[in-house]
C-alpha cells in the first residue's frame, strides 16, 4: 500500500471522526458492541504499524495488536475522556511492545538468538533491486526502544511532541531530546548507505 494513500486514509478517518471516537466509546459503554468494532476498524492499522516498526519484525504483530485491543475492550469503561483516544491507545500499544521486548530480552539470556531480519546487509552485498526502505526499517529496529518509539510516533504516525509525551508519560523536553538522539543514531547506522540513500 502506498504510504501517502495510507496517510490520506488515516487522516480522512481522523478528520471525520476525532470527536467520534468519544461518541463510539460512549456507545460501547452503553452496551453497543458494534461501536467497538468501528473503533478497531479505524485504529487497527496504526497499532499494527507501530508494533511492526517498534519490534522490527512481523512475528508477534498479530498477537500483540490483538492483546492491545483486548486490553482496550476490557479497560474502555475506565477511559476518562481527558486525552484523545489515540493517545491512550498508543500508550497501551507501547506498553505491550515494552512487555514483549522485555520478554525477548529475558529469553535471549537463556537462548541467544540473532534475528536475521535485524541484521543489516552490507552495502556491497545489496542486490540491484534492493529496497532502501527495508534498510531504513532495519536501521530503526536497531535503535534502543526508548529512542525509536518517539521517532516512529513523530515521523511515521505524525503525532505532536505533546501527544507523544502523553503517550509515553514523559516531559516534552525528554521527547524532543530522544527524537533528536534517535535521528542521530539512525544517521550513524545508515552512514554506510549514504550513496544508496541519495
Amino acid at each position, binding site marked *: *500500500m502506498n504510504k501517502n494513500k495510507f496517510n490520506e486514509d488515516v487522516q480522512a478517518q481522523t478528520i471525520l471522526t476525532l470527536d467520534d471516537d468519544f461518541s463510539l466509546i460512549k456507545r460501547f459503554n452503553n452496551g453497543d458492541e458494534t461501536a467497538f468494532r468501528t473503533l478497531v476498524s479505524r485504529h*487497527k492499522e496504526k497499532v499494527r504499524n507501530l508494533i511492526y516498526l517498534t519490534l522490527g519484525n512481523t512475528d508477534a*504483530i498479530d498477537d500483540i495488536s490483538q492483546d492491545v485491543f*483486548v486490553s482496550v*475492550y476490557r479497560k474502555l469503561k475506565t477511559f476518562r475522556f481527558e486525552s484523545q483516544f489515540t493517545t491512550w491507545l498508543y500508550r497501551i500499544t507501547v506498553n505491550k511492545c515494552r512487555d514483549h521486548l522485555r520478554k525477548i530480552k529475558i529469553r535471549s539470556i537463556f537462548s541467544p538468538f540473532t534475528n536475521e531480519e535485524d541484521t543489516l546487509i552490507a552495502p556491497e552485498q545489496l542486490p540491484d533491486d534492493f529496497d532502501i526502505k527495508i534498510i531504513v526499517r532495519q536501521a530503526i529496529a536497531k535503535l534502543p526502544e526508548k529512542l525509536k518509539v518517539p521517532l516512529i510516533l513523530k*515521523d*511515521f504516525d505524525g503525532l*505532536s511532541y505533546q501527544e507523544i509525551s502523553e503517550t509515553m508519560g514523559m516531559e516534552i523536553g525528554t521527547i524532543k531530546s530522544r527524537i*533528536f538522539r534517535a535521528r542521530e543514531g539512525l544517521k550513524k547506522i545508515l552512514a554506510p548507505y549514504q550513496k544508496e540513500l541519495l
Partner: protein
Amino acid sequence: MKMNNKKLENISAFIDDELNNTDKNIISDELKNDINLQKEMNSLNQLKELVNELKPLPQDPYFETRLFEKIKQEKARSWHAFFLNKPIMAISAVTLILMVVFKFYPSIFTGFIDEQKANLMDIYAANLRPFILNVGLSSDDIFNFAFNKTITLDKEKNQVLFVGVDESGKDYFEVKFEQPKNFEKNVNMASFVKSLKLNENQKKEFDSILLSYSSDLASQILVNDNKTVAVNPNILNYQNALRAEVMAFASRANKDAFARIFSVSPDLQSNEDLTKLVKNIKSVNNKNYLVITPDTIFSSSLDVDRALLSAEVGRMKNQIKNSTRELAYINDDSKVFVKWERENPVSKKNDLKIVVSEDFCKVEIPEFSIPEIPSFGNINSAIESAMSQFREMNVSIKIDSLGKKNSYSFKYKSTEKDSPKGFEVRTNMPDIHLKSLDSLQSIFKFFNDDTVMFNSKELRKEMERVKKEMERFREEMEKMRRELNPNTTPTKKEKSPIEI
C-alpha cells in the same frame, strides 16, 4: 559540545515545527549564516522523510475476526478465572442464584425437603405392625383403655400410650414409661364388675363387648422396632364408643347398682342409636396417622389391611385360648399389615408448637384432626362426669369399733391422684346404735360388705379435718428431717418449660 547538541536538538525540533517563536527565529537566523547547520538540517530532514515514507504493513483482512474470537474466549476465561481465583465470590454467586431460584421456584426446595422427609419417614415407618401382635389385648386391657385411657405398648419396658384430655379440654396422646404400681389407683375391671354385681352370663357379655373392639383397636395403634408408635386419632372415637357401650350395658345389667354408682346418670342413647353410632365409628377408615418417634413427630398416611388384621387377631385369640401361657401367639413377621402411602407422605402442617421441659417434651398439633362422629359430644361429657363420680365413691372403709361409745376407726383408700392412701383414721361418729343398721344407713350407703358411699356431711367435715391433720403431720416430719440432716440441699427451684 553540549551547546552543539542543544543547537542540533533545536534544529531537529525546528524541522518538526515544535519550537516556540523565539527559538524558531533564533534557529532561522543561525541557519542563514551557518552552512554546517544547514547540512545538519538537510540530513535530519532526509531521515525524517525516509521514516515517513516507510511502507505500512499490508492490511490483514482477518484481523478483526480473530480479534473478536479472542475477545469472546477472553470473556469466557475471565469469568472462569474470576470464580476460580475467588472462591468466596463463586460461593456468594451460587448462594445468590439459589436464593433467587428458591424465591421464585420454592417448589424445587420444598420438593427436595419433602423427598428427604419421605426418606426419613421410610426409616421410621418401616415394618409398622399393629401393637396387639406384640403384646396381646385382654378385656382388662380394653377396659383400662376405655376408662383409664391407658394402653400398654410394651410390657417389658412398661411403655404405655395415654390417650387423654388436657386442662384446656384438648385431646392428646402421650407415649410414656409408667410403672405398673401407678395403675393401682385406677378403676379396674374387677372392681367395676364387682360393683355392678354381674352374674356369670353378664360377665361373659361384658367380656364380649370389650373384646369386640380388639381388632379395631389393633388397627389404630402401630409399632415397630425403631420405637415408632403410630396412632390414629380416630382411636378417641373408639374410646368414646367403647365407654358408651359399657355404660349402656351397665345400666341394662343392674339398674339399681348403676343408679347407686352413678348419682349423675349419663344421658345414654337408645340401643338402636348406640348400635348405629358404634357402627358409624367402626366404618370410618381414617388413614391419617400421627407418627411418634424418639426423634420427631409427623402425620402420615398409612393403609392398614383390616381384613388381614382381623383374621390375624382371630388366630391370635384362638392360640391364646388354647394355651396356658400368657401370650402364646407366635408373631408372623412375613405378613404385611401396614402400607405407607408415599405418594402423599409429608404433612404440610408444619405449625407445630413444641414445649420442652426437664422431664417432658410436648408437641401440639393445631390441626390435629379426629374424624367427626355426629351426636357423640353430649354423651361423652356425661360419661366423663359419671366416671368421676365412680372414682369418688370407690372408697374402702373398714368399720372397727374401738370399744368406746361413738368412736370408730376405718381404713381409707382413694383412687384420687393426690389423696393420701392406706392410713387409719380414728374418729368420733354421731350417736349411732350399732345394733341398728338403719341408723348406720343414715350415714353410709352400703353397696356390699366393704364399700360404702358417703352421705354424711359431718363425716365429710371430719375427713377434711383429718386431711388437714395429715398435712400438719407431714410438715412436722419435714421439719424434723431438716433438723436431723441440716446439710440437705434445699429443694431445687422448678424450671419453667421452654416453648419453642
